[in-house]
Every structure is written in structure tokens, then in C-alpha cells.
């Protein structure tokens, strides 16, 4: 496979994952804002912007944090290169670039999703439509992954696509946790205390983990439980441990196909080993924020190493 093609697949799925996670984040914010008073709703929208990584761009244009302003910025603002519309355009552009490395089924769901999303995001999104738009974006992710699993050849391309998905997912989950770290674990004395149910509900919803968490924990929520669930629980498909476990499996398969392990293999082994031994006390010793920052940095290093090992660009 061409290095350029591997790069295209990797980024196609990174952008898809990011768009989908951004939609989840908005969804959670929307729900939160509806159940709060005006002042705390503003605060929620501010944290949504923060977690989406678009705080600076937003502040440059707006002084207040109203829902309609925030979701239009995140979904479709023409000056926002990280808008969902722009990310979906990137998904489609990369899909065109790797058109001969993906199945026709995958291409057509991506193309159709883009046409729909581009259509609804051509105009400002009002209160009545925002839920539908979010659902459309999430469905785009589900359809693409379904088409991929059902129809794509299990060769290197499949692994590069998955690598993109899980690098991005690990980053996004860490980012969402980081947005609320001060609420989840400001100090060790918080371990074991019961949290504001709205706050933890939002974090879980942002990663579509609210139901799974309730199922596993019979409705009990504390910092330890949530941090463990999102960081170390290998059963939950958006946890850091799961994301890196999957990334490791895909990198292993790539190393086997290419007859040798590179820097990316070494780094992912190290990360999985670290996550395997991780305890919540250790996270606290480091500080949750420091831990997450370090994790995101390591994750970015792995992405860079993949690009180097497999000649994405040179």
C-alpha cells in the first residue's frame, strides 16, 4: 500500500472519529443546559467549547456562551477549521483520495453522509433542528464503521483506518475527562465522595458511556468509579485502555505484515503496559490533569511514530 494511501485512511478515520465525538459532546452539553439555570448553562457551554479544543477561535468571535451560538460555531462556522462540517468534508476528501483502497460501500455511505450533513449545515441550525443534526453526524460514524467492518479487505488499509480511529478516540476521551478533572478529582479527599449527578452524567454522556456505567455500577457514581471506567476499563469501547488495546492489536498486525516492529510498536507496548498496571491512586499521585496531559502527549507521539514507520509523508 502507498504511504500516501495509509495516511489518507488514517486521517479519514481520525476526522470521522473527531466529528462523531464532537457531536456526542454537543449532545451532552445540550442535555445539560436544558436541565440547568441560565448561569450554569453558560458555564456548561463554555466547557463544551473548551473540550472541543476551539476556545480561542470562539472567543475571537463571541463574548457570550449561548447554546445556539456555541453549537453553530462547533457545527458549521465558516471561520472554524475544526467545525463538524469541515471535519466531515475532510473525511470525504480523504475518502476520495483513497478511493481505490476502500470498498464501494464505504465510499458511498461516506459520500451520502457528507451530502446530507453539508446540506443541513448550509444554513444556521436552530433549536428545533440541532438534535437531528447531531443524530445525523453520529449516524455517519456508525454507518461508515459498519460498512468498513462488513465490506473491507482485512489488509493493511483496514489496520491504518482502525489506527486512526483509536488514536483519535484515546485523545478525545482524555480531553473530555480533562474538561472536568477539577470536578472529578480536585484532591484525594474527593475519592469516594458522591459527585454532582449532573456533572458526571455529562461526562459519561459525552462518551456515550452513561448506560454502560450505570449497568456496571448499579447507578452509584463516584470519582473513582468514573475515572476507572474511562481510563482503565478494557470493556468500555471509548476508554483509554480499550482504545490503546485496539491500537496495539492493529499495530501488531501491521508490524507482522511489514516484517518488523518500529518505534510505534515500542511506544504502544509501553503505553499498554502502563495502563495495565495503573491504579487510581497512581493517577491521583500524578494528578488527574497531569496524567491526562501526559497521556495525550504520548498518544500524539504514537501517531507521529506511525506516520514515520509507515512512510505516510516521506
Amino acid at each position: 500500500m502507498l504511504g500516501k494511501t495509509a495516511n489518507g485512511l488514517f486521517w479519514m478515520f481520525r476526522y470521522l472519529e473527531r466529528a462523531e465525538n464532537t457531536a456526542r459532546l454537543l449532545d451532552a452539553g445540550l442535555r445539560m443546559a436544558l436541565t440547568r439555570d441560565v448561569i450554569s448553562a453558560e458555564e456548561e457551554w463554555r466547557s463544551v467549547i473548551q473540550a472541543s479544543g476551539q476556545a480561542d477561535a470562539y472567543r475571537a468571535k463571541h463574548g457570550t456562551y449561548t447554546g445556539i451560538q456555541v453549537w453553530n460555531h462547533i457545527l458549521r462556522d465558516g471561520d472554524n477549521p475544526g467545525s463538524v462540517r469541515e471535519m466531515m468534508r475532510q473525511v470525504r476528501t480523504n475518502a476520495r483520495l483513497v478511493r481505490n483502497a476502500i470498498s464501494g460501500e464505504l465510499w458511498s455511505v461516506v459520500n451520502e453522509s457528507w451530502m446530507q450533513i453539508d446540506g443541513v449545515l448550509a444554513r444556521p441550525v436552530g433549536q428545533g433542528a440541532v438534535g437531528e443534526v447531531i443524530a445525523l453526524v453520529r449516524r455517519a460514524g456508525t454507518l461508515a464503521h459498519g460498512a468498513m467492518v462488513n465490506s473491507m479487505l482485512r489488509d493493511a488499509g483496514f489496520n491504518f483506518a482502525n489506527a486512526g480511529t483509536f488514536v483519535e478516540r484515546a485523545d478525545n476521551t482524555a480531553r473530555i475527562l480533562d474538561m472536568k478533572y477539577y470536578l472529578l478529582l480536585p484532591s484525594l479527599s474527593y475519592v469516594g465522595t458522591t459527585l454532582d449527578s449532573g456533572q458526571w452524567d455529562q461526562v459519561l454522556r459525552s462518551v456515550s458511556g452513561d448506560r454502560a456505567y450505570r449497568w456496571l455500577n448499579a447507578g452509584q457514581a463516584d470519582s473513582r468509579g468514573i475515572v476507572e471506567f474511562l481510563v482503565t476499563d478494557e470493556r468500555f469501547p471509548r476508554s483509554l485502555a480499550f482504545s490503546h488495546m485496539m491500537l496495539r492489536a492493529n499495530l501488531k498486525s501491521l508490524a507482522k505484515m511489514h516484517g518488523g516492529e518500529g518505534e510505534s510498536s515500542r511506544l504502544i507496548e509501553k503505553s499498554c503496559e502502563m495502563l495495565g498496571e495503573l491504579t487510581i491512586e497512581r493517577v491521583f499521585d500524578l494528578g488527574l490533569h497531569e496524567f491526562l496531559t501526559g497521556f495525550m502527549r504520548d498518544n500524539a507521539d504514537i501517531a507521529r511514530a506511525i506516520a514515520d514507520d509507515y512512510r505516510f509523508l516521506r
Partner: protein
Amino acid sequence: MNGPSDNFDEMRDPAGAVRPAYAGYAQWFDEQDRGWLRRKDREAENVFRRTGITFNVYSEQEAEERLIPFDMVPRIVSAGEWRKLTKGIEQRVRALNAFIHDLYHRQEIIRAGRVPERLLRNNEAWLPEMVGFTPPGGVYTHIVGIDLVRTGPNDFFVLEDNARTPSGVSYMLENRETMMAMFPELFTRVGVETVSDYPRKLARSLAACAPPKCEGKPRVAVLTPGIYNSAYYEHAFLADQMGAELVEGGDLRVIDGRVAMRTTGGYVPVDVLYRRVDDDFLDPLSFNPDSMLGVPGIMDVYRSGGITIANAPGTGIADDKAIYSFMPEIVEFYTGEKPLLPNVETFRCADPDSLKYVLDNLAELVVKEVHGSGGYGMLVGPTATRREIALFRRKLEAKPENYIAQPTLALSTCPVFTRKGLSPRHVDLRPFVLVSPDGVEITPGGLTRVALKKGSLVVNSSQGGGTKDTWVLKD
């Protein structure tokens, strides 16, 4: 100007009776509900959009992907007509290859005085780098598109030979797929020759031209200028259908006397490069030094047998419009036979007598730039305004050797589906021809381009033309 009613209509004779080739289709058509057909017509557009069969158009503001309008009434050619056409096309394509070989070797045809030497001098399509070199398998034009027009029951003319990088074959294939998906029962009632094995034939034909240094199974790659090229869809489509890599200049590099592509496992040599990049951009070391689309040093590799480039560099010399006017002589010179397919009568404006005739009859003629393509830079006398003709006259007088002129042909028509039912529109036809050391293969079908504006003679997609599925009937 002739209205469509005066022209040869391929579906109906002047008395309104359906011609034999269209009998099966016409019967089916009459049985269909009009409302249902109209819904199908809209559905076709959605199919194309969803599949992403688009071409890129650039305006000053932004890039835009457009659809080439598709008309759902097929253009039908009978088995007998097709047999005659293929004989003529094969003869012409063999002559083209012999001609190009001759031009880059002994130039017998010039020595014999059949083609003037001045046509080579100052011709940008002429590549000195190709002199004395024979491409692998002796093939210059691996893929040719011959543009044909029709004016009567037995009157087909060659309008243009596309010997560089003819495009449009993806429309031939996708139009058929769309037709079969929309009207499956139609294909059970009318026997139509298949076109779908074109990509397989192309892959085989390219592999048969592997260079001397190729070891093992030839590795074929399609070279595209990139995702923003107007024909990118077709490049990706063909690579996908052939199971070949789709490469850009940046993926390629000369290593150890071979052109190699950067894969995730390192650099791997390419044996046959189906390039959709013009000669000028192919090798910044040999041609345009600013080109980012090509591969520095590829011409040296080529000349030392390390890679096959399809079509060969320098083939453009044969599809120049000034050369075109000599095609009857060229065919006769290399095949020893009279051309089976005639040219459209062509006045070379470089010739003073012809120029005078052309200037005197501008309102009746079509005048084309010798190096132009895509329907740009041409004058269609009968539909031009006086002012346009006056402006063109000045250009023509300033540089007569840049132009040729042809009579306005009474192009045949074929019906298109409109809201009010069937209505005749002008069409042309581009069959696709593959050349390999094993022979010449012509896929039974082709690209039918149709002028969607009533009475218009310009079928180019860049100027509002559409396409149709082209059927060659089984015997």
C-alpha cells in the same frame, strides 16, 4: 442552419418509423408509464451524485464538483454498423502507431513528400527525447479515443483522434451500470454487448507492454495530477477497477534506474505507468522544470527500459489538428489501403488558397485552433454573431497556420428524454481502443456525448453537453 428535423435521426426515419436498431427499445419505451419514467430520470441524477461520479470545475471563487448530465435514452448501434466501424477504427489506430514510430525514426513519410516537414518543426507535441527510441512492445498509443460523427445511414466520419490521454471511459462504464440498475428488464429484452470488462482488458493490455527490466508480474500504477484534477474521479475509478495503485508525482522517485513508489514497506518499482498527466509535466528534468506533477528523471528510466509509460510521451504529435488533415494520406501510406473511415473535409488555413476560401465562408464553417481542445477557441460560423465572426477573422488573419476549418456537419440526432417526451439532439461517439503487442481491442460501446440544448452542435461537457449509455446490439 439545419434544424434537427433535416438531420439524420438515428431512432426514426424521415417518415417517423422506428429504425430496426431501436425497435426493441421503442417498444419497451411505449409500454412505460410517463410519470414513472420521469421519476426514473430524477433517480438517475441521485445515483450519480451518491456514487460521486463528478468532474471538478474551478471558478474564481471555489472548486465545485459537477455532474455531467446523463440522458436515459440509450444511443444504439447495430451489430452490422459496429463491425464496419471497428474495421475502420482498427485500420486508423494501426496507422497512427506506425506513423508515430516513423516520425521518431526514419521519417519515411516526410521523405516521401506525403506530409510536410514544417508540421514537425515548432510543434510543441514533438519530443526530441523520443527520437530513435522504441517504446516497450512497439506500442505508442495504448489507449486511443476516436471521436466519430454521423451524417447519414452509412456516413460516419472521424472528427478527432485522441492519442494522448483520452478521457471519458468511466462514463461509458458507469452509464451502463446506472442503466442496468434502473431498467433491468430492458436488458433482458434487448441483447446488448457488455462493456464492463474494459478495466480488465486495460490491465491486461498494459501488462503486455511491460518494460525489459520488469521482473515477475508487471506492477501497474495510474498516475494522476491529484484529487483536484477535473478527471480525478476517472483516475481513481480505473485504478480501483484494475486493482492498480493510484499514484501522484510525490509518491514516485527514481531509485537504482527504476521508477519506484513509496509504499508503507519502502520503495517498490513500478513497471507500467498509465499516466493521466500531460507530457509537459511528466519529467521536470526533461520538460517543464516547474512541474510538481511528474517524476524527475523518469525519461531516462524510460529510455533505458526501466518503465513503460502509457501513452508514450510524444504521441500528441499524431492528434494535432493540423496532422489530422493528413490522416487519409497517413492511413494509405502505412496500410497500403484506402481509409475505411473518412475524415471530415478540412481546410488548412496555412495554405493560402484554403485561407481565402475560409475567410470568404466564415459564416458557414467551423474553425478550430490547431492545438485546442474541449471546444474552446473555436468558431461555429452558423451560430456565431456578426461581431464574433469579425473578431475571429482578425485572429485568423494574424496567425492562419494556427487554424483549420471544416464545413458545419449535419450531425445525426438521437432522442433525449425531456419533460414533454422524446426530443432529438445532436450526438457524437467516442469508442475506446486498446493497443498492445497482442493486437487492437475495441470495446463494443463508447462514450456518446449529446448536446442538450436543442439545435446545439457542441457536445463538450465543459459547454453543457451530456452523455448517454451507448449500446452495441448483439448479432
